[in-house]
């Protein structure tokens, strides 16, 4: 019996039918007996002391069962890098909309009506709304007690500086001396909203023993468990976190949102409490992509060889640190790009402001710095008269090179990515692109890399009595398809059909630890653990089989369909069911394979580089990518249309080809929004556009139908079947490639996102004679 390998096939999602029939259950779709509904009261001020609460009217309102203020929460703080955030505002508010009071009532309508009756007295403080405000001498402090907060890394902080990071290799002064041309520019990128179609929400229920079960929209049941318990002062053993289907995350659901508040409401009432954020609340109180100000200076030789680069970043982190120190450090680590630049120094300052926190968002700082660096490369190429693709190819990292700061690289498919994007886009013939009257067309190119990895992960593979398997990893499938990919890996490793493996839903009580669905990591890190755990099951199966078949374990092989047999002897074999029955009832015990590991290769080599304030000592393996975009610019309106795109990524090995394409296509669309239209706008301290009527994301009409995803496979030596991550890489250089295409079409170089019609038109008019 021969069976086609499950690896590399475009298998449909395991759960696709439940999603196509409306039976998939997300947090909002869960109902519990006796369930109450939550509502929040948000701060009207960006920065103020809370003087007093008057919640009498709200408590007396119809249906209200509980009203909680900051006084009802202990003085416990959470935070992935810096413990600076209470579950609910306590003593002070730090951004408009910050939850101040929480209510639980019999119906959602009653809870929201009662929220309007809450009176809070504030004493306003000066609002810090920009990095310039934050860094001004004598500025009001967003966190007076920053020095005393617990930090998980050696943070360089003080005043309104949340974290400073500096990374350097080589000798910058020497680099400038050796350069024939030095180009320096400043860039700005805006806050972007994740806009997962499913708004954040949570449902908590307390059992008679006082233990809490929490269902929520999240990217890691384990991060949620840790954050809720940290911020409420609960032992982790008292909280069980589960995940129904998740309507996407993009980073928004990695750290806690309202889960701590909902758990506290459930503990206070003894009844289940559900709270689903409205779209406006989801915009106003969760998190955004960081606005960056970036200065990039690059020195090159006349032949196009990159020599030196200096990068300075100022990132606006908003009111709480959240994942910001990580985003800043990661952006700096990516600021050299996938190139050799011997003399590089990148410095960044992350500031606290009185705005919604910024945090993890697909790309994790890479799209911001790449917009700057990858557009500057085109400017340099133009100044030197070198083809933009050639200059990238000339400086691209090769197998003997290291990443910025010294990490070794396992596999590099960059050259092939560049070649595929160049060929498929017809780059060489781009001068022949025809434009309609009043329109101008151009192609833009950019390259990127991204890690997959970080932190701990585990897998448990259990052989059931009938020879089928349960796989349990604790990794949350947020819609990207990891349940299917991990099941493919497990089934293929054991040579059993896909439907003989069931994958357990993440559960902090029963699943092995998984840091989360983030950092493009699940296929690579969890996939490795699954493969190793399946190998352990194979080893135990062979131990039994060797005894039963009276042979050496090394003479045995797994055969397709759940059979173990002696190599070269067709008849000598046993089905898994026979092995599993023996293990369960007679000898050895049930067969359970486990594996856990953590990525432990250092990011930073002290012999090559200097690193100050680096928040992650180990980070992961590198995927590579190239992107070519064709745009058409309307000369009258300045509107930019992306007409075609070729997005290419080296993913090591595609476990599920259609899912890899789906990640690249979806990331392109989200990057196109970042490039052209998306911006969270503050009007003073308040969000001006917290609705989908005012904050636009790309529709079928903006994303080109000719969106071509291409896969390059340069196998990672340690990845499962050679696989590396793909979740984020496709977004990194969309804005850069679009900007390069706009420049190719119009001669206008834009250094600020989004590239709105106004900005493009202003550039076009300014570049015309007399303009």
């Amino acid at each position, binding site marked *: 019996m021969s069976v086609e390998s499950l690896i590399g096939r475009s298998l449909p999602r395991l759960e696709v039918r439940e999603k196509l029939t409306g039976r998939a259950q997300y947090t909002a779709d869960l109902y519990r007996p006796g369930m109450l509904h939550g509502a929040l009261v948000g701060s009207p001020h960006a920065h103020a002391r809370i003087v007093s609460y008057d919640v009498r009217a709200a408590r007396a309102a119809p249906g209200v069962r509980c009203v909680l203020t900051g006084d009802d929460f202990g003085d416990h703080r959470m935070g992935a890098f810096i413990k600076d955030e209470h579950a609910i505002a306590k003593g002070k508010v730090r951004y408009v909309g910050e939850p101040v009071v929480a209510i639980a009532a019999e119906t959602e309508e009653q809870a929201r009506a009662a929220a309007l009756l809450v009176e809070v007295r504030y004493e306003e403080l000066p609002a810090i709304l920009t990095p310039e405000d934050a860094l001004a001498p004598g500025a009001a402090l967003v966190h007076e007690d920053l020095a005393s907060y617990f930090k998980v890394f050696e943070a360089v902080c003080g005043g309104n500086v949340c974290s400073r990071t500096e990374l350097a290799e080589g000798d910058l002064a020497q680099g400038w001396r050796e350069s024939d041309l030095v180009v320096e520019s400043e860039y700005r990128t805006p806050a972007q909203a994740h806009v997962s179609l499913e708004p954040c929400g949570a449902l908590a229920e307390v059992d008679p023993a006082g233990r809490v079960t929490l269902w929520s929209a999240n990217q890691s049941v384990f991060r949620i468990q840790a954050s809720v318990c940290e911020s409420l002062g609960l032992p982790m053993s008292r909280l069980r976190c589960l995940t129904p289907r998740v309507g996407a995350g993009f980073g928004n659901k990695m750290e806690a949102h309202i889960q701590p508040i909902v758990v506290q409401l459930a503990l206070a009432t003894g009844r289940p409490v559900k709270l689903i954020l409205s779209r406006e609340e989801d915009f106003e109180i969760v998190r955004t992509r960081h606005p960056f100000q970036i200065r990039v200076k690059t020195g090159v030789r006349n032949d196009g060889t990159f020599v030196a680069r200096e990068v300075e970043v100022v990132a606006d982190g908003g009111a709480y640190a959240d994942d910001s120190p990580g985003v800043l450090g990661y952006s700096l680590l990516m600021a050299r790009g996938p190139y050799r630049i011997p003399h590089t120094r990148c410095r960044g300052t992350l500031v606290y402001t009185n705005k919604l926190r910024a945090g993890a968002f697909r790309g994790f700082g890479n799209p911001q710095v790449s917009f700057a660096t990858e557009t500057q490369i085109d400017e340099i190429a133009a100044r030197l008269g070198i083809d933009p693709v050639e200059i990238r190819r000339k400086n691209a990292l090769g197998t003997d090179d290291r990443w910025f700061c010294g990490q070794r690289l396992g596999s590099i498919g960059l050259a092939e990515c560049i070649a595929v994007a160049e060929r498929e886009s017809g780059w060489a013939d781009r001068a022949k692109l025809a434009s309609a009257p009043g329109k101008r067309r151009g192609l833009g190119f950019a390259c990127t890399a991204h890690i997959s990895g970080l932190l701990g992960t585990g897998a448990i593979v259990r052989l059931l009595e009938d020879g089928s398997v349960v796989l349990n990893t604790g990794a949350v499938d947020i819609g990207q398809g990891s349940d299917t990919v991990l099941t493919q890996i497990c089934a293929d490793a054991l040579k059993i059909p896909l439907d003989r493996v069931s994958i357990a839903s993440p559960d902090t009580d029963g699943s092995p630890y998984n840091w989360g669905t983030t950092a493009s990591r699940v296929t690579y890190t969890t996939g490795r653990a699954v493969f190793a755990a399946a190998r352990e099951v194979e080893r135990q199966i062979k131990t039994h089989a060797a005894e039963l078949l009276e042979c050496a374990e090394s003479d045995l092989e797994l055969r397709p369909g759940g059979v173990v047999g002696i190599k070269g002897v067709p008849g000598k074999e046993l089905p898994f069911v026979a092995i599993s029955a023996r293990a369960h009832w007679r000898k050895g015990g049930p067969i359970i394979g486990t594996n856990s590991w953590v990525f432990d290769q250092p990011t930073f080599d002290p012999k090559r580089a200097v690193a100050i304030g680096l928040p992650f000592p180990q980070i992961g393996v590198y995927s590579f990518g190239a992107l070519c975009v064709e745009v058409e610019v309307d000369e009258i309106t300045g509107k930019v249309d992306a007409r075609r795109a070729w997005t290419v990524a080296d993913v090591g090995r595609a476990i599920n080809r259609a899912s890899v394409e789906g990640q690249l296509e979806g990331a392109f669309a989200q990057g196109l929004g970042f490039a052209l239209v998306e911006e969270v706008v503050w009007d003073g301290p308040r969000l001006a556009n917290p609705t989908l009527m005012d904050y636009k994301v790309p*529709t079928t009409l903006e994303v080109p139908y000719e969106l071509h995803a291409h896969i390059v496979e340069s196998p990672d030596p340690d990845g499962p079947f050679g696989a590396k991550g793909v979740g984020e890489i496709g977004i990194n250089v969309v804005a850069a490639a679009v900007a390069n295409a706009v420049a190719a079409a119009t001669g206008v170089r834009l250094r600020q996102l989004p590239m709105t019609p106004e900005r493009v038109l202003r550039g076009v008019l300014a570049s015309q004679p007399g303009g």
Partner: protein
Amino acid sequence: MSVRQTLVLRVNDAEREVRPALHDTLLTVLRDELQLTGAKRGCNHGVCGACTVLVDGRPVRACLTLAHTCRGAAITTIEGVTGIADRLRSAFEDANAVQCGFCTSAMVLVAAALVAERPGASIEEIRTGLSGNLCRCTGYRKIVDAVCAVAQGTGR
């Protein structure tokens, strides 16, 4: 506070008696009273399209539709839709057009109405027809391909 009135709705070919307030939307009634949760609340402003259901065969934003205005109409939700929708389901599966799934119910319903109205619809017509439904995961390419396969009869 809120006046509730009995209302008989015809949902997925069955008569269902509910008692919504006068201001309750069709989405609230479907989800909270009838436990038909396939229609999603993505924005509650009629922008994202995730709440779309068919009323007398036409796509309607359930979050903007008052339940009491649906008296006598035939309401079809993702839980009950068949016919073209079944072919679309297979096509979505084959094209890998589903990721997180939050927009999927509505996409299938809108596509079913589109294909019923315009058999043989072109790619451009399909893109236009789906432009009122947001998807943040897929980049739309695979969704358009799935609908195209049914509209042009190239799917299974």
